[in-house]
């Protein structure tokens, strides 16, 4: 099918380095000695652990329950025993710990009962729930729970469903191999997404450096008689970025402020997500394994199907790293990061492990001053001005970085790649972004504290006023009663001047009702306190017989000897000695 393709501005063409790992079929990685499954693997809420140390789990058994709508469940990747639920380092640039479930495999790899669903027969809400319970998240890199993207925006017709098989980062070939070997199931997964979203068109974008994958996908689409178009897009980094792929395939430009592309009638899914969604729907299999590329400074680069939670060092050993390997890059060389230590586990979003060596990735020469050449602005696929954002981020002038739309930056690394002064621009942008987020959090907390403080003050004032009013009323009633009594008494006596004695009293009482009330409350409180004091007077040591007295004295002596209480006369010395 002939199709008019569009272009995005900028982009770079780094050496692709994909040939090393894409000539061998996907291999099954052997069972690791233990699995460390982080609970927080997707964007959104942190799943809560629902198993304990010592429990026996089956493959596919849920171990972490989704927390909220934007969250996905986590499952045991194989059968075995839970060793612990504890803090372990997670593959994250911070190198900080997070809650992980450690499982010792029993080697049987025994599945739990799987329940497939017929997505056409049940309402969409049930399909979303099933996908959430199966832990299906975006496998392209961000790890957004898939069910959260499957509802069309209200009032916006879904025009295009885009399936992302571009895989633009150098070195990575896991999507390539997936499409070559399992195209049939990928296409079936796409059909599930199509049925849920009801788009007008389905476009599968694959970079034109993967002819075998394109051919395999076309064959699968034809075989299943689906109206999907498989489109070869020009190889240009970062064509696999969601917004770039939308631009190339549809010509639509997603505004930076738009949170979801569904508001423009476009939705993008990775091919791996479609594949795992199909496994979940048709076979009831939760996401417990994924395909990842092991490449870089190794003898035998290849793609492996790997259990989530496998320690990276055990995987790297399969590809026989060269002796000068000094670290593991997770993700590609453009956007990936060096993992904090080699034992960190594979997570759902791990698409590639690159053995790092200075020979392969020579250390960058020191940063030089910005010469304002504008190369970064020409390379930026989002048409931002990285040099301006760099100045302001460097000066910690975060308001200005936001004026230059720093939050549209996708951290693709094109600017750092082309910078002749070797400035780590993306690092500055990440720093600025996380500072802005932190400030936002602080500001929200401050605003909340302020409203709560103001409400407390208001409440205290109100309570004080209420109390004063109540007391005043009570005092007034008391005074009125007294006046009435006095008047009655006077009337009974039949005095010639009945009101002479009572009137001044009543007048004084009404003049100072507050004072009266205060006095009355104080008196009442004093009486209560007195009664309480009398009630708790110890009475059990009076009128003792000599025998009882002796027993009590003995006990006292023992307590003194045991230092339970300090003997009264020598108390200060005792304290000093201790």
């Amino acid at each position, binding site marked *: 099918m002939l199709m008019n393709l569009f272009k995005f501005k900028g982009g770079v063409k780094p050496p692709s380095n994909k040939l090393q790992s894409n000539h061998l079929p996907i291999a099954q990685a052997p069972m690791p000695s233990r699995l460390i499954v982080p609970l*927080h693997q997707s964007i959104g809420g942190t799943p809560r652990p629902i198993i304990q140390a010592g429990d026996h789990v089956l493959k596919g058994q849920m171990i972490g329950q989704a927390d909220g709508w934007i969250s996905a469940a986590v499952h045991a990747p194989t059968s075995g025993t839970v060793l612990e639920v504890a803090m372990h380092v*997670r593959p*994250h*640039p*911070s190198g*900080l710990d*997070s809650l992980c479930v450690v499982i010792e495999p029993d080697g049987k790899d025994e599945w739990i009962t799987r329940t497939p669903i017929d997505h056409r027969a049940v309402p969409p809400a049930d399909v979303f729930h099933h996908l959430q319970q199966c832990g299906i998240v975006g496998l392209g890199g961000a790890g957004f729970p898939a069910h959260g993207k499957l509802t069309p925006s209200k009032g916006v017709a879904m025009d295009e469903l885009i399936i992302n098989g571009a895989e633009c980062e150098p070195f990575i070939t896991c999507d390539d191999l997936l499409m070559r070997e399992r195209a049939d199931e990928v296409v079936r997964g796409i059909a599930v997404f199509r049925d849920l979203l009801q788009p007008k068109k389905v476009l599968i974008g694959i970079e034109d450096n993967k002819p075998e994958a394109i051919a395999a996908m076309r064959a699968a689409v034809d075989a299943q008689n689906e109206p999907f178009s498989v489109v070869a897009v020009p190889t240009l980094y970062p064509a696999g970025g969601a917004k770039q792929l939308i631009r190339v395939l549809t010509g639509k430009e997603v505004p930076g402020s738009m949170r979801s592309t569904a508001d423009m009638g476009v939705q993008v899914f990775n091919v791996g997500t479609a594949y795992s969604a199909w496994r979940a729907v048709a076979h009831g299999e939760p996401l417990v394994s994924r395909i990842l590329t092991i490449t870089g400074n190794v003898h035998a680069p290849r793609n492996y199907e790997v259990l989530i939670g496998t320690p990276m060092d055990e995987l790297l050993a399969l590809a026989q790293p060269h002796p000068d390997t000094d670290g593991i890059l997770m993700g590609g060389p453009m956007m990936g990061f060096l993992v904090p230590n080699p034992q960190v586990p594979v997570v759902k979003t791990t698409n590639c492990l690159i053995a790092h060596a200075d020979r392969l990735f020579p250390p960058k020469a*020191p*940063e030089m001053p910005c010469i304002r050449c504008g190369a970064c602005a020409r390379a930026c696929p989002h048409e931002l001005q990285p040099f301006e954002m760099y100045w302001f981020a460097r000066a910690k002038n975060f308001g200005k970085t936001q004026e230059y739309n720093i939050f549209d930056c996708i951290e693709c690394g094109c600017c750092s790649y082309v910078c002749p002064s070797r400035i*780590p621009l993306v*690092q*500055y942008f*990440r*720093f600025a*972004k*996380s*500072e802005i*987020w*932190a400030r936002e*959090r*602080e500001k929200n*907390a*401050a*605003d*909340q*504290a*302020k409203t*709560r*403080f103001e*409400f*407390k003050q208001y409440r205290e004032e109100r309570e004080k006023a209420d109390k004063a009013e109540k007391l005043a009323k009570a005092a007034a009633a008391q005074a009125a009663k007294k006046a009435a009594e006095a008047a009655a008494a006077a009337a009974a006596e039949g005095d010639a001047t009945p009101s002479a004695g009572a009137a001044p009293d009543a007048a004084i009482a009404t003049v100072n009702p507050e004072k009266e009330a205060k006095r009355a409350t104080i008196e009442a409180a004093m009486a209560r306190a007195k009664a309480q004091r009398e009630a708790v007077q110890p009475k059990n040591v009076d009128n003792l017989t000599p025998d009882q007295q002796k027993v009590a004295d003995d006990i006292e002596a023992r307590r003194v000897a045991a230092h339970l209480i300090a003997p009264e006369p020598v108390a200060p010395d005792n304290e000093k000695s201790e």
Partner: protein
Amino acid sequence: MDILLAIAIMALGAVVLGAALGFAAIKFKVEGDPLVEKIEAILPQTQCGQCGFPGCKPYAEAIVNGEEINKCPPGGAEGVQRLADLLGREVKPLDAEEKPKQIAIIDENTCIGCTLCIQACPVDAIVGAAKQMHTIVAQQCTGCELCLPPCPVECIHMEVIPETIDNWKWKYPVIEIKAAA
């Protein structure tokens, strides 16, 4: 004649402009002091009283009336800097030690349920009732330490908020300086 006309024109102008100004003064009247609000927006709203004023707003008002800007320890040196930028005053070092962000923790085994801390908390971040265990709502706690002194059994202590993946920040890129050989 001419002079009368000139006076009349000037008088008319004065009346018209005066009316316009008077109208504007009523129509566009600014409630409250905008400067106090701007200062308050910079202050961290911990309501801790470490500045010597009963809350952030009184301190903001005092700053407008000439009080020093370096008396807010929770705001830190950065807060002083921002106040100085806003007010065009000189940046001064903080009047106290800058502490990391903390929250109060009640040792629930020791708490006797006296409610004194609940009354002391400026942001109602402590829940509990008389003779019942109290606890602190961590999200609402501003770390002001006002609940520490009233506790008769000293069961409240402050804990620095640990760094987690959720509040972790990218560090400022470090430019390595190579020693000259």
